[in-house]
């Protein structure tokens, strides 16, 4: 591989990893506070994609599609909590997992009913496909943008969690929800905030994801939620840094496989990546950062 290709693939790995890290982080934020594994998390990505589609149909520019999509994902995320999880707050993790699974199917089918059961194309700006020259190396605009935006979001969230009062409450709740309530953290507010952050991350990641695939479909959330699941388990369930690490690991793994696998093996890329993850988890069932504390 030439040095130029290497840099290109590195940017690709970073950009895919950034998307996966956002996916995983959005799932992990809710898990760390509530112990809830939200299967319907993937549908937040779907919802953000469909919001882009509906705005595009009104001939709005791309930036408006983006600005519109993220709040929709946040609102739906908070509504999810209110409708499907608040009545089950005392239920077992298994019951809540089933509930979120049903919720995912409900949202998928509502989209089938209300919009279309078939995939729809979403227009994205043409310059996404261009490449820029950076120090003599040609790099795609979209991967570069994705990596930059993803990285900025991760840094922003980390600053929010570490510096702000609300972020401190979130971190306290993710350590020990019951104790954090005893010291005055308001449960409903923290939970709503967790779902809002989760929705924002899904919304942003959704915009980036849809920009890559340039289409939406009712079941498109399955991929993101699977990546998020795998990345969070790989990183250490309930550990936010672990989720980010798991996301980047998974993104890098997929890019590496894409490069090294012979063409005949390409269709099995997902299967091979998952097999490798299973092997890692065999030796570290608690995940890479599992058992260590949230930083």
């Amino acid at each position, binding site marked *: 591989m030439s040095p130029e290709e290497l840099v290109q693939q590195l940017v690709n790995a970073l950009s895919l990893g950034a998307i996966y890290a956002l996916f995983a982080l959005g799932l992990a934020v809710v898990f760390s506070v509530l112990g809830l594994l939200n299967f319907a998390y993937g549908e937040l990505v779907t919802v953000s994609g469909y919001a882009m589609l509906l705005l595009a149909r009104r001939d709005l520019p791309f930036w408006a599609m983006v600005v519109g999509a993220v709040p929709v994902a946040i609102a739906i995320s908070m509504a999810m909590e209110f409708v499907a999880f608040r009545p089950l707050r005392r239920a077992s993790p298994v019951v809540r*997992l089933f509930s979120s*699974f049903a919720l995912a199917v*409900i949202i998928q089918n509502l989209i089938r009913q209300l919009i279309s059961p078939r995939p729809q194309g979403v227009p994205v700006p043409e310059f996404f496909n261009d490449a820029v020259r950076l120090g003599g190396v040609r790099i795609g605009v979209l991967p570069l943008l994705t990596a930059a935006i993803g990285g900025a979001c991760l840094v922003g969230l980390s600053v929010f969690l570490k510096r702000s009062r609300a972020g401190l409450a979130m971190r306290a709740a993710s350590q020990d929800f019951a104790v954090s309530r005893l010291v005055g953290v308001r449960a409903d507010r923290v939970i709503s905030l967790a779902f809002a952050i989760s929705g924002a991350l899904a919304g942003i990641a959704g915009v980036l994801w849809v920009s890559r695939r340039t289409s939406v479909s009712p079941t498109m959330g399955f991929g993101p939620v699977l990546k998020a699941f795998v990345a969070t388990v790989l990183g250490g*369930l309930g550990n936010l840094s672990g989720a980010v690490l798991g996301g980047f690991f998974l993104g890098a793994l997929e890019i590496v496989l894409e490069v090294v696998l012979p063409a005949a093996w390409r*269709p099995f890329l997902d299967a091979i990546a998952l*097999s490798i993850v*299973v*092997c890692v988890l065999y030796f570290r*069932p608690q995940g890479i950062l599992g058992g260590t504390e949230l930083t």
Partner: protein
Amino acid sequence: MNRRVREALGGWAILAAALVAVAGLTAAFGTAPLRRTVTDFFLIALLVVGLQAFVGNSGIVSFGHAAFVGIGAYAAALLTIPAALKEQALPELPGWLLRAELGLLPSVAAATVTALIVAAAVGGAIARMRELAMAMATLALLVLVHAVLANWDSVTRGGYGIYGVPGNTTMWVALVGVLAGTLIARLYRASGPGLRLQATREDPLPARSVGVHVAAARFGGLLLSAAIMGAGGALFAQHILAFDPDQFFFTLTFTTLAMLVIGGRESVTGAVAGAGLVAVAQELLRTVELGVVVAGVRIPELPGIVQLSVAVLIILVLVFRPAGLVGRAEIEELVRRRRGSPGGTREDGPDREGAVIPGAAPAPRRPTVARPVGDRAVLRAVDATMDFAGLRALAGVTLELREGEILGLIGPNGSGKTTLLNVVSGIHRPTGGRVELGGRDVTGWPAHRVARLGLARTFQNIRLFAGLTVRENVQAAAPRGVGDAGVDEVLLDLGLADREGTPAAALPYGLQRRLEIARAVIRRPAVLLLDEPAAGMNEAESEELLVTIARLREELGCAVVVIDHDFRLILRLCDRVQVLNEGRTIAEGAPGDVARAPAVIEAYLGTIRPA
């Protein structure tokens, strides 16, 4: 054959009769399409029952079981499709597979084995994970298997799908399949391994401390249930005749899980009932989905309305009846409740909480004199140290428990008593020092191995298998070879016999503590650790407990360590007392002497400063 197995067979007979009746009525009066629908129902019920065997007993959600169905279906298809057809459609198959033209039974057997092999290969990694991580791993398994089936063109024809499977699965074959599946699932649920898996579902920690290897129990359940799914897939393939990988993906996962959750995941009856209910609802809704004319108005087709309705139903059931419509009970229990005979539960019996333990009525004043204490140490902790992230809970404690001895372990809160029990029982791996049980070095052994070597314990903050009955709690802990009679004896001995059918969570507090002891005693331990057995008891109850513990020591010939804050209980019960403070031993000796030791008084009351 024990009572649980007999009851399971009785319950299965009722279910079987109902299923046979459905088949018989369909054969007598049904049209060909109805026969097909009933065959569909039998097969999906078989799959839901197979899913129940794992999800119901382990309490772990699996999104991956449809993968085992797919594996079974493809295995059976490749082995049954006529050779001539295979040469045409799948010329790249290896010769032996091209030529294979198996009949129904061998193909089902081969499919079962194939599913088992895959389950064994991935299950080892999956079963070691934490509960929710396992759920995610099963989802990954689903995607992994789907990706292989959808892309392995030379074997599966990928997305084009496979066709020409002989139609060996008649309605009667499907009936036999679902009857066999329910029988296996019922027997497993009633069996020792099944019950122990249910114990891990209720609470893995006490399950470990009664000798259950949690990962192994889960692995076993996964294998059994994958085998049923594989067999079901083989029957399914020979019913639908042509299929593609998408048939074993998200929709099948959703349908089977929906049926299980709606019906009641913790019972086989619930699984079958859920399959029936959802299947009927789906048939009715499907006509709506395709568009119907109501009162002259044509309602347009509503894609996805079936899934949507079923999903809404799931959430409603979870909110209002979290255990599912049927709940945790099996059919024979439901029938018994209907008839009004309470069976094992005589909740309104005359003697309840304050019950005098049978056989212990003439309580001796000082019951501990009879048996001499031996010289041999049955349990020894040498210089045990335990650090928790910067907190030193044990700073080198040595404990020696001699044969037949009752040792009291006391000390202020936070002095390390419970930590010491956790270290010697394998719940914590000590940071330093050594633990010996019966002369063997067991330092760092996992709890289930320590338990199997003859150590049993109770928990300070009661850790029963809350959803299991009193009898099941004891039975789950029973070592191999202890039958119904042994369980009866222990229940009677601890005054729980008249509550044997009550769920542990519904017992009054005092009886919950006693059930903890019963669960430990059934293991016939050489060493019994009791962590605050009298906590929260009134005087009469702790008096009774005192007598019970002393008697158990006589009967079992075991050595006992008791932690308690009830000083009088400790003084009267124990042969020797060891006092901990801040993770160290500060006094040790005969009860009377220890109570007067200055260090002990200081630890409990503080020092008196000279004025």
